[in-house]
């Protein structure tokens, strides 16, 4: 540890937690409390995502950078579970789509079975290829017309099957399950890869998931977006219209607009905090059990762990699925918070690497580190913009008007990433093992 950070163990954790808390309190005092809460909410979601990545990387050393894909799947679950069914969508081609998908799954299953059953050699290759090709043609034959029919159904407003119209909170566990199912399929194929090779494979799979989300309009309208998703909490405007609320606000001397957004955001905070705390408890209990020890052993030395009777493949699959499920839950929570699903806005930088930064800065392998990293980095991500602007203002005050000053002021927006970079490097420099190292 560097000299700059003498405190160790719990004292250090408390100190850092207090520091991050100060950042949020400062935001509340000097900017606004609604903003502080808004950042807290997203920080909670980010922490959960970071927790998921930490389960994969910190526990098992799986260099999976497919985070974005699972976040997106979580988002998809919100649309599928909670949005209203599209009028006429299902009738237009729903059964065809389902049948087509089942055909596709059956084809893959048949191919896998054939690959296992047939004797090695040319027959097997040809057989599997034949099954795949025929299956693909049948799949397209059933699937394509159905999709066209659905997508032609009032494309400007719908063009998709729509959701089940169930309560949105249900979408959170469903998001986890959806991500877990995808992770199972991915893990079965790709987990044999190591380090950066696994990374690029998972990155690629995340891009594939996104490509499906963007281009399969029948599913969730693709790039046309789904907006106005239902909320688990009341709308601020409804509160502002409710006499009871107005009375309550004025009895406490609050401004009704501010009060309404604070109340709503606090409700989100509560919901998210419950999820986070539950997950943290589970993670901590797992990490500090023989299970966690086994995972650390596997991470340290797979060959040896295998020789000591640990089924490395299965355990890798297990943590991969668990981590992905956690990320999926967080993805669903985020989409709920945004109130919309916009597939075009998922980018690896934001939804994979920023989350990784949180994990590494927080201290990989340490659950509380992930939470701390989530809060700190998210706060920075949002607040570097004003910090950058402010820095630019400081630099340019006292400067004569002219080309340079204009150029500098116009460049203020880029200070955002620059500032982020500098702060990231500083944190990494003074805590190269993360703020809360594993031990």
């Amino acid at each position, binding site marked *: 540890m560097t000299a700059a950070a003498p405190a160790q163990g719990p004292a250090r954790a408390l100190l850092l937690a207090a520091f991050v808390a100060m950042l949020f309190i400062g935001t509340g005092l000097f900017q606004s409390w609604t903003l502080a809460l808004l950042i807290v909410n997203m920080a909670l979601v980010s922490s959960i995502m970071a927790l998921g990545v930490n389960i994969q990387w910190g526990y098992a050393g799986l260099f999976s950078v497919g985070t974005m894909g699972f976040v997106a799947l979580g988002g998809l679950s919100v649309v599928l579970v909670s949005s209203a069914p599209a009028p006429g969508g299902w009738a237009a081609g729903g059964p065809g789509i389902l049948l087509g998908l089942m055909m596709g799954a059956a084809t893959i299953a048949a191919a896998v079975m054939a690959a296992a059953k047939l004797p090695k050699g040319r027959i097997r290759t040809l057989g599997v290829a034949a099954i795949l090709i025929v299956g693909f043609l049948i799949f397209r034959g059933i699937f394509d017309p159905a999709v066209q029919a659905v997508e032609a159904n009032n494309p400007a407003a719908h063009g998709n099957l729509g959701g089940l119209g169930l309560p949105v909170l249900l979408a959170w566990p469903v998001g986890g399950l959806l991500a877990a199912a995808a992770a199972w399929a991915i893990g079965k194929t790709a987990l044999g890869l190591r380090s950066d*090779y696994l990374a690029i494979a998972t990155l690629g799979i995340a891009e594939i998931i996104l*490509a499906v989300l*963007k281009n399969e309009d029948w599913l969730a309208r693709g790039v046309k977006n789904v907006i106005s998703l239902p909320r688990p909490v009341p709308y601020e405007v409804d509160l502002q219209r409710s006499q009871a609320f107005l009375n309550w606000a004025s009895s406490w001397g609050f401004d009704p607009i501010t009060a309404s957004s604070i109340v709503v955001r606090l409700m989100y905070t509560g919901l998210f905090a419950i999820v986070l705390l539950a997950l943290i408890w589970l993670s901590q209990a797992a990490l500090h059990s023989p299970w966690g020890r086994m995972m650390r052993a596997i991470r340290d030395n797979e060959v040896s762990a295998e020789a000591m009777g640990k089924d490395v493949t299965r355990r890798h699959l297990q943590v991969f699925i668990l981590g992905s499920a956690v990320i999926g839950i967080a993805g669903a929570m985020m989409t709920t918070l945004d109130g919309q699903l916009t597939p075009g806005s998922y980018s690896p930088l934001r939804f994979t690497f920023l989350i990784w930064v949180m994990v590494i800065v927080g201290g990989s392998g340490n659950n509380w580190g992930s939470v701390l990293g989530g809060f700190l980095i998210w706060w920075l991500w949002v607040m570097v913009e004003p910090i950058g602007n402010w820095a630019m203002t400081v630099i340019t005050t006292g400067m004569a008007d002219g080309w340079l000053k204009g150029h500098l002021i116009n460049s203020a927006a880029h200070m955002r990433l620059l500032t982020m970079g500098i702060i990231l490097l500083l944190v990494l420099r003074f805590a190269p093992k993360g703020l809360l190292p594993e031990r």
Partner: protein
Amino acid sequence: MDILNALVAFLNFVFIPGLAYGAQLALGALGATLIYSILRFSNFAHGDTMAIGTVFVILLTWGLQSVGVSFGPLPTALLALPFGIVLTAILLLATDRAVYRYYRRVKAAPVILVMASLGVMFILNGITRFIIGTSDISFTDGERFILTAGDFRAATGLAEGLAIRTTQGVTVVVALIAVGLLFWFLQKTRTGKSMRAFSDNEDLALLSGINPDRVVTVTWIVAAALATTAGTLYGLDKGFSPFTYFQLLLPIFAAAIVGGLGSPIGAIAGGFVIAFSEVMVTYAWKKVVTYLLPDSLAPEGLVQLMSTDYKFAVSFVILIIVLLVMPTGLFKGKSI
């Protein structure tokens, strides 16, 4: 039935663009793979290094153009390139001093270096845009084509044209030379071998009297040369815009990894795998098939396996399949 036209259509729309794009990716991948193999981390700042190197070249090119220098049929930027490389090398060496050296000293895990490179990426990102703005810049001059579609049609009398841009030609040639040189440098020269030794076992390299600072310096200089060249050639061919260069990172790493990290030959093979899988699998074969079949059998549809919506998805599927068969890439790459 018209085999020649079919062939030319295929060459013009699939083969030549794929070849040039593959070479562009390969040049980028070479730099990334070099840093991976010697300094042992995936350098996320590589795309932005290419961008800032290109910015230097663009500024120098403008300077040259304003005093009336030109390079005959070739783009003036090629004259500015060596100076751009020097500036980029200085920048990278400064970055190493300020950032990476510390982590090497404390023997930080590779993932920490990756995260640090992410930080460097953000900073370079800002600096690039600060210097040259965000808009898209085209800085090519000289003769645009080696062969234009029109000339080809006139000369051969075929219905299909064949076009080869100067920049495409230059890129392919430079990429091949760079791969050869890098391979030779790492495998045969004393300095190259000492660099590999350093990357293999740093402590033992010290015990052999290898000077780590020198290894690191040489690595960054070569990386700067590769990144600047890659960025400049790409920019000449397709135009410069900072955001696109950042986005290049993904296919570049895909190429480096599918070829096998640390292997120069792998980088070029990987570049072509990625490029051709993007171009080929989503290609609509309608035109080629129409030429090949009698009129009565001419296809109605596009004869397309998948729509271009899925070109990335497809190239990644191919990448994953390659990796499943060869878990460390086509040319047995490293893995840390």
